[in-house]
């Protein structure tokens, strides 16, 4: 895989240089304007994809930021006589600033995702267009820019615009590529798959989304400024056209939103088709054809054309077979933990209620370093709520939670991850679009603070520890249940936590698989990680736990060595009723 890295970036540079030389060929003007359009759409589609494709927040407001760039240049050059070239950075910055302000507010609201975000961004377009239409920015008749001088850098003014557009297209695709391969990009993809889990693993979701949106708007603003000069007459209706955003989205979807080159590919395909189908009656119908092609691609190739290529390549390579082994493997040796009496985690009178139901009514317990603690209790006793509260998914209503000396009761989930806590889920929540190794590498990078290369290496060693090294390059959907649970475990361990919370890790496993899982949990503790596990299967609890805490009705009713606790009359009563106590 790494062999392709350098060539892709290099290939881009070479292609850009080659395209830069096209005007020197003195071809008919048609070709330059055609290529300009291609660069235009590449810029728009790719910049849209940086937030919307990578992170899954579909924005319908791209036209707003494009328009911001257009009008910044129009106003600066026409009204304030600022030189065209100087106006361009301003165009980009204004758009970026606008986007950042909106994102700063919107991304704080947890509920605004998916189609709500789309609606909101669309509303922004209308607001901006109204403002432009009613103030001196445009006022109605549009802005005439024919009189603004465009420097002739490599020949004619038209060529300047050509090169500027080429520059922006290059920057956008290069940025898409760079982000795709960076920590940032991995975080964005994780956000698209499962934002809450990403947050818990340590991905700074707010920051990443904000930066992606700002960059996306910056590029849109830049190309807007250039386009203003290309058309020389700017109107609100043409600029803040929703159709523009929709076209960019369609191109990105056609090419494949998951890939850095997808939107560019889609832009090239659509623009070429549009141009080549011109002529006579079919000029109008060609749009219909493009719409039909788009629908066909989306339905049969959900990952776009690029996704289709990838699928073909994958099948050619063949699926890597490999069973899960639990052979002992060497991992970085850690000092094996001795169960000390120093508490690693302490909960004092923790309370949590949901709409009138008191899930936790004052839970006080402690987890000692190096132990395996079993958390049990009848249905509805609050076990899962406690795990969710400790890991930061829910906020407590009252009480204290102290991890290794840090008060984490009101700390955000991704910071708790950084403090040495990890958890697994009852139903494994892997990032379905990331490969197995990247799932784990993500945790190493964001929870453990490692770089990308180190993260990948560590990921492989953790996969080896859990016996999954043969499946490192597979997608999570190709794994069976035990393998996915082990993936969840590897991911939890990759951030090298001091404490790991296991939520019903044995549920759904066959007895043989259960033995494997129990063995792995013991090895985890022997490596130096403290384990708290929630479980219903009593035989496993008795087998595995050093100590047991019993919850009932949101409170702790007993704790101590497993066999002793299970004979405690209060516990028997909680489970079986008075008759058996």
């Amino acid at each position, binding site marked *: 895989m790494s062999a392709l890295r350098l060539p892709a970036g290099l290939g881009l540079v070479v292609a850009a240089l080659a395209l830069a030389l096209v005007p020197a060929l003195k071809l008919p003007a048609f070709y330059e304007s055609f290529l300009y359009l291609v660069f235009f759409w590449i810029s728009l589609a790719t910049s849209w994809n940086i937030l919307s494709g990578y992170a899954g927040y579909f924005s319908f407001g791209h036209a707003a930021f494009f328009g911001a760039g257009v009008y910044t240049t129009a106003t600066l050059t026409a009204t304030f006589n600022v030189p065209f070239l100087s106006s361009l950075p301003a165009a980009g910055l204004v758009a970026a600033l606008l986007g950042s302000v909106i994102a700063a507010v919107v991304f704080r609201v947890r509920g605004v995702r998916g189609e709500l975000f789309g609606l909101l961004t669309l509303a922004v377009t209308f607001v901006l267009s109204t403002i432009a239409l009613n103030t001196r920015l445009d006022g109605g008749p549009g802005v005439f820019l024919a009189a603004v001088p465009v420097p002739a850098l490599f020949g004619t003014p038209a060529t300047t615009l050509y090169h500027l557009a080429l520059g922006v297209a290059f920057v956008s695709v290069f940025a898409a590529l760079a982000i795709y391969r960076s920590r940032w990009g991995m975080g964005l993809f994780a956000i698209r798959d499962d934002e809450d889990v990403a947050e818990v693993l340590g991905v700074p979701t707010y920051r990443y989304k904000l930066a992606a949106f700002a960059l996306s708007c910056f590029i849109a603003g830049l190309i807007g400024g250039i386009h203003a000069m290309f058309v020389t007459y700017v109107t609100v209706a043409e600029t803040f056209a929703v159709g523009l955003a929709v076209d960019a989205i369609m191109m990105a979807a056609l090419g494949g939103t998951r890939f850095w080159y997808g939107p560019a590919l889609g832009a090239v395909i659509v623009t070429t088709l549009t141009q080549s189908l011109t002529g006579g009656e079919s000029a109008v119908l060609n749009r219909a054809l493009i719409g039909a092609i788009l629908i066909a691609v989306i339905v049969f190739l959900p990952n776009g054309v690029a996704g289709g290529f990838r699928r073909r390549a994958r099948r050619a390579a063949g699926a890597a077979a490999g069973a899960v082994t639990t052979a002992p493997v060497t991992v970085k040796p850690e000092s094996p933990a001795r169960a000390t009496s120093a508490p690693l985690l302490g909960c004092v009178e923790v309370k949590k209620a949901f709409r009138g*139901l008191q899930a936790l009514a004052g839970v006080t317990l402690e987890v000692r370093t190096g132990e395996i603690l079993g958390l049990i209790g*009848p*249905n*509805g006793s609050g076990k899962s709520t406690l795990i969710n509260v400790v890991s930061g998914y829910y906020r407590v209503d009252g009480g204290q939670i102290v991890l290794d000396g840090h008060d984490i009761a009101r700390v955000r989930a991704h910071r708790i991850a950084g403090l040495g806590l990890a958890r697994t889920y009852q*139903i494994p929540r892997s990032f379905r679009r990331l490969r197995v190794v990247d799932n784990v590498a993500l945790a190493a990078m964001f929870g453990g603070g490692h770089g990308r290369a180190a993260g990948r290496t560590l990921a492989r060693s953790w996969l080896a520890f859990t016996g999954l090294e043969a499946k490192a390059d597979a997608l999570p959907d190709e794994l*069976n*249940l035990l393998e996915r649970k082990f993936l969840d475990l590897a991911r939890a361990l990759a951030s090298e936590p001091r404490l790991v919370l296991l939520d*019903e890790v044995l*549920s*759904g*496993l*066959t007895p043989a698989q259960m033995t494997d899982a129990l063995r792995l949990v013991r090895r985890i503790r022997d490596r130096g990680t403290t384990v708290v596990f929630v479980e*219903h*299967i*009593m*035989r496993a*609890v*008795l087998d595995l736990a050093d100590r047991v805490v019993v919850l009932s009705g949101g409170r702790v009713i007993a704790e101590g060595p*497993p*066999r002793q606790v*299970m*004979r405690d009359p209060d*516990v*028997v009563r909680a*489970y*079986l*009723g*008075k*008759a*058996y106590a």
Partner: protein
Amino acid sequence: MLEVDRLEVAHGDAVAVWDVSLTVRPRELVTVVGPNGAGKTTLIDAIAGLLPTRSGTIRLDGRDLASVAPHQLCRHGIALVPEGRRLFSAMTVEENLEIGCFAPAARQRRGESLARVYATFPVLRERRRTLAGSLSGGQQQMVAIGRALMAMPRLLLLDEPSLGLAPQIVDQVFEVVAGIHADGVAVLLVEQNIVQAFAIAARAYVLEQGRIVAEGTPSELARDARIREAYLGQQ
């Protein structure tokens, strides 16, 4: 009447119920008890048609239910009172009850069914125009049972009716269930609360980790070491 034979139900590839066989005879009240996570809800959801089964059969009066579409099951006389009640909380009590008899045959008898439900649960008649979501836990449980009764079932499936309710309310609920059984409806009751379940059941099965580990009458099973083991582990 109900014959479950070697049933296997899975969530994705997590097998929750293995090789489970049980029967419910007409007019019988049978209970399935077991600890948390044993697969009780999975079992009853599969019988009610909410979950697909991997292998094994479910027969009602000899007819294989696998061939029946989920939304047709209530026409064959099965009604479900699900875990957590799952009422339509934005609709009124009476509307919830009305959905219970949505199927054409039951809808024709709507008036008399409604009267009977209100007779069994007088407090619901007072509250029939209240939103179901604003009722107390016990009252919600009554609406859920009433809704199932509106479908005029011959077999009533109850999933952990005592969950989340105060002890006195639990007593009331079980009284009602016993009363319904006395009227001639067969009942399959899945419960974590052994005491209450054994008090009204004719026969019982014990489910642990997806398998039946014991069966018999409540008196046979009372104080049986296997139950203790299932809930509390090996002593």
